[in-house]
Each structure stands twice: as structure tokens, then as C-alpha cells.
């Protein structure tokens, strides 16, 4: 494995009875990177993360953490990892500062050091306001923040977050994303989510799985450039129907969806489209208001990949995984 990878999973496989929840999935998390781990419900994200953490043992495959094969008795390695489960919970009778100090006690024997770190984390994750309350009755967002604070107690080099934004309102999601951005400066992260837009803004790499199989593993920049221009938008002042009818017969058009006076056109040959669409507009004597190609959102990549009709492209993208 390369020296800068903090985590490497090789051929991870987990079966539950007849169901293969994770099917020979391999990937690497490099130091300082944020990996968005994306997939629909039931894809096998949580199962994969639990195998990484040693909470589940894989049926096949191995996990290397910081170059060492994963072993739940390897406390040195565990001390370098922080984890927030998909549904974080805490002893309900504890107060947040108390909980953080308890967690800190696993990392340091010096009470003063632990206290100081716990107070810093309270501040970092906006928990001071909740200091006087017991964890019992914390909201989803408050639990998520306490979850992240405890994960950072041991100053980890790798952070594993399972669906940190699920069940949060837009403001709560925005907060969590901001925290992740800050944590990124301190540790490598692997963050699972089914909301692509959550990681799209902050992740460096995208790892996508569906029904237990890896379908994409590449830097975000590569995914975007690869697909740039696949969707073109053309807007005219009037006569959009005539234009649509004319374009529908073109060999490079894959799909057309009208949006008011505009057409969103998925194309297979960007160059041909760039020549022929303006030509068609001119031929009908229409007034061209807008003509642009835009990078597809991760959402669109996701949907087109999970529909399972683009096998060659998937393989092409894997090449860039590094």
C-alpha cells in the first residue's frame, strides 16, 4: 500500500444469509483527503464502515489501518481513529462535558489534559449552551454535534462519519458540513451519505456503491470534468416546440426535456451538438437567448450510474481512481 494511505480496504465482503450486503469492495483513503461515500439506502455503506472499524468482521477481504491489518485488540491504531455511528447515542444520565471527559480518559491519563481538551471540543462544536443539560432529550442535531466532539477527543488521524447529515434540517446540515470542512484540516475523513449535495461541496474523492458493489471511485474533479457538457441547455424567445421536434431526430441526441422556453438536451457528441444546435436555431429564424453546457451534478452522475445502463463508462472512470 502507498505510504500516504491511512486506510485501505481490499475485497471487503459481508454476507447476511443469502444477501451479499458488501461485495468485494476495495478502496483507499489517503491522508488529508475527504472521501464522500455515497450510495442509496441499503447499498451497504454502514456495513462497510463497520467492517473498517472492526465492529463487524468481514467474510472475505482485509482492512489495513495505518498500514496494519485491522485487529480489535490493536489499541494503538484505534487511538488514531474517530467514529460517529449513524445513530449516535450516549448514556442518558451524562452531561456533555462529563461524557467528553470520560471518552478522553481512554486517550490520556492526565486529568488536566483531558479536561482542557473536553472544554475545547465543547467550544468547537457549539455545545457550551447545552453544558448544563443531560444528554437525555438532546435533539438529533445536538447528538450529532456531541458525536463529532467525542470523535475528535483523541485527535484522530482518520474520522469515520456515518450519515452525519441525515435527519437534520437544512441549517443543521449546513452546520455539520461546516464542521466537516474544519475537521478536514486535521484528519482524513470518510463520510457516508445518500445526499450527494452534502459531500459534493467538500469532498475530494467520491466512492460510490450500489447493492454492495463499488460503481465509482474517483477524485471529484475528474468526475466533473469527465461529464462536463453532457447536458446542454438552449433557450429561445419562442418556437421551442419546433426546435425540439427538429432536434429530436439528430443522432447525437440522447434525451430532450423541455423547461418552459428552454430545452435540456443530453448529448452523446458534444462537438456535433455545439455546431448543429445553433445552426438549427438559425434555420428556423429563432431568437437565441441562452446556450450553455454545464457540469452535471453528482446527483445526475449518481442516477445515471445506478440505473445500470452505462457499464463501459463505469470502467473508464475506475481507471482514474489511482
Amino acid at each position, binding site marked *: 500500500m502507498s505510504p500516504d494511505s491511512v486506510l485501505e480496504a481490499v475485497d471487503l465482503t459481508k454476507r447476511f444469509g443469502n444477501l451479499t450486503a458488501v461485495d468485494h469492495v476495495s478502496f483507499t483513503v489517503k491522508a488529508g483527503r475527504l472521501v464522500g461515500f455515497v450510495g442509496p439506502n441499503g447499498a451497504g455503506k454502514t456495513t462497510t464502515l463497520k467492517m473498517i472499524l472492526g*465492529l463487524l468482521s468481514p467474510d472475505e477481504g482485509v482492512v489495513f489501518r495505518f498500514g496494519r491489518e485491522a485487529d480489535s485488540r490493536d489499541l494503538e491504531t*484505534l487511538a488514531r481513529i474517530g467514529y460517529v*455511528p449513524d445513530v449516535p*447515542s450516549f*448514556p442518558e444520565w451524562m452531561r456533555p462535558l462529563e461524557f467528553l471527559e*470520560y471518552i478522553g480518559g481512554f*486517550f490520556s491519563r492526565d486529568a488536566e489534559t483531558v479536561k482542557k481538551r473536553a472544554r475545547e471540543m465543547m467550544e468547537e462544536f457549539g455545545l457550551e449552551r447545552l453544558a448544563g443539560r443531560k444528554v437525555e432529550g438532546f435533539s438529533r442535531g445536538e447528538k450529532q454535534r456531541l458525536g463529532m466532539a467525542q470523535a475528535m477527543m483523541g485527535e484522530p488521524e482518520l474520522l469515520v462519519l456515518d450519515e452525519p447529515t441525515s435527519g437534520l434540517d437544512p441549517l443543521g446540515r449546513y452546520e455539520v458540513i461546516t464542521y466537516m470542512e474544519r475537521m478536514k484540516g486535521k484528519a482524513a475523513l470518510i463520510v457516508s451519505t445518500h445526499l450527494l449535495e452534502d459531500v459534493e461541496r467538500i469532498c475530494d474523492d467520491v466512492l460510490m456503491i450500489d447493492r454492495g458493489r463499488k460503481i465509482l471511485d474517483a477524485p471529484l474533479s475528474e468526475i466533473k470534468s469527465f461529464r462536463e457538457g453532457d447536458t446542454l441547455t438552449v433557450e429561445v424567445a419562442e418556437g421551442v416546440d419546433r426546435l425540439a421536434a427538429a432536434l429530436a431526430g439528430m443522432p447525437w441526441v440522447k434525451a430532450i426535456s423541455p423547461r418552459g422556453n428552454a430545452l435540456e438536451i443530453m448529448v452523446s457528441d458534444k462537438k456535433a451538438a455545439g455546431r448543429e444546435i445553433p445552426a438549427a436555431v438559425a434555420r428556423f429564424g429563432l431568437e437565441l437567448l441562452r446556450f450553455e453546457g454545464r457540469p452535471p451534478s453528482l446527483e445526475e452522475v449518481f442516477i445515471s450510474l445506478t440505473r445500470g445502463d452505462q457499464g463501459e463508462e463505469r470502467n473508464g472512470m475506475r481507471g482514474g481512481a489511482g
Partner: protein
Amino acid sequence: MRNQFRKDLLEMVRTYRGYVLVGAFVIFGVLSPVTMKVLPKILPESEEFQIVFKDTTALSAATQYFDNVAQVVSLIVVILSAGAVAGKRSTGFFQILLTKPVRRGEIVASAFAAHALLILVGLVAGHAVFALYTEWLFGGLSFWGLLASLAACAAALWLLLALTVFLGVVTRRAGLAGVLSFLGFFALSLLLGLLPLPWEVAPAALFSASSGVVAGRDGIVVLVPGMITATVVASALLAASMRLFERN
């Protein structure tokens, strides 16, 4: 170990679970001698009752106390400790805990130790008030007998605790572990009874044998075989629980 143990102990206090057990011990410690003293006075003057309760002594108070410990307090021990490890594994908190730099065996050991200490505190409190009231109402208790019975009850209840923790780790279900261990504890004693061994080796016999020892009727030695059995089996169960929990 210390960090986890401190949290487990604190949990007993802060969730008030600890008070339930200590409270039960104290209540039976007081009630057993008091009822034995007043029962003959408040019962109807029929022949039957007078025969049974005519001469209540320290021994009858002790029998009453240790019966209560065997039947009610042990049930409370099982209920309190059934959820110590079982059923928690899938909670978000345990998933966090299991990824911290702490040996998994220590998590089990510390849950056992915290409950064992609670049992000891309860026993000391229960024995203390039992001794005070009985000595005051009847007199005639053996000091060394009291101490020996304290150790005997601790050994028996720790075995019950170890069995509950073990079954919790095996079945992963708190309720099931509770029911099975309560049955198992007495089944173990019955099984030992089937063997050509004296009844004293059975851990359940520790409770009934304690009253004679406390009242000075029997020597302390009658408690020794049961205590050896209880300690050996409890240690084995605890070691097995720690191993099993380490291994997922």
C-alpha cells in the same frame, strides 16, 4: 479499566439503580427481625400459629433474612445486571465505545466489578442493620458467623451476577439472560445435588446455611464448600464472558 469502572459506578448512583439494591437489603435487614418479634403478638391466638411462632429467636429472624436475600434480593440483582452488557452492543453508544482504545474484555470486567461492588455495599448495609435489630430484639448472634455469612452471600450473588453477565454476552438479550440465569443458578445447585456430593457444595445452599452460622448454631466451615464452588464457577464464567466479548 479505571476509566470505564468509574463510569459504570457513577452510572449506578446517577441512575438510582444502585439505591434499589442497597434499599432492598436494608429493608429486609430491618423487617426480618422485626416481623419475627411482632408476628407472634399480632397473630390470632390460635393453636396453630402459636406453635409455629411461640419461640421466635435470632435463628428465625436470620432464616427470614436469608430467605429474602435468596428469593427477592437475588432477583433484583439479576434484573439490575441483565442489561449491563447484553443488548447494548447494537446501541450507538456501544459502537462508539468499542472503537475506543479499550480492551473489550475490560468493558465486561468493569461492568461485573461495578455490580459486584454494589452487591457488597448492599450486603454490608443489609447485614449491619439486620445484626443491629436482631441483637437488640433477640440477642445471641455470632460476630464471626455474620462475617462469614457476608462472604458466603457475596460469593453466591457474585456467581449469580457472573452467570447473568455470561448469558448476556452469549444471548445478547437482556430479558432472556435474566430469566435463564435466575433459573440456571438454582438448576446448577439442583444438578450438584444429583451428584453424590454433600448439599453444602451447592451455591444456593449458602443462603440457607447462613442462618445457622449467624445464629451460632453451626460452625463457619459449613459455608466453605459452597463458597469454593461459587468462586470457581464465577471466575470461570467471568473469564469466558471476557473472551467471548473480545471475539465479537
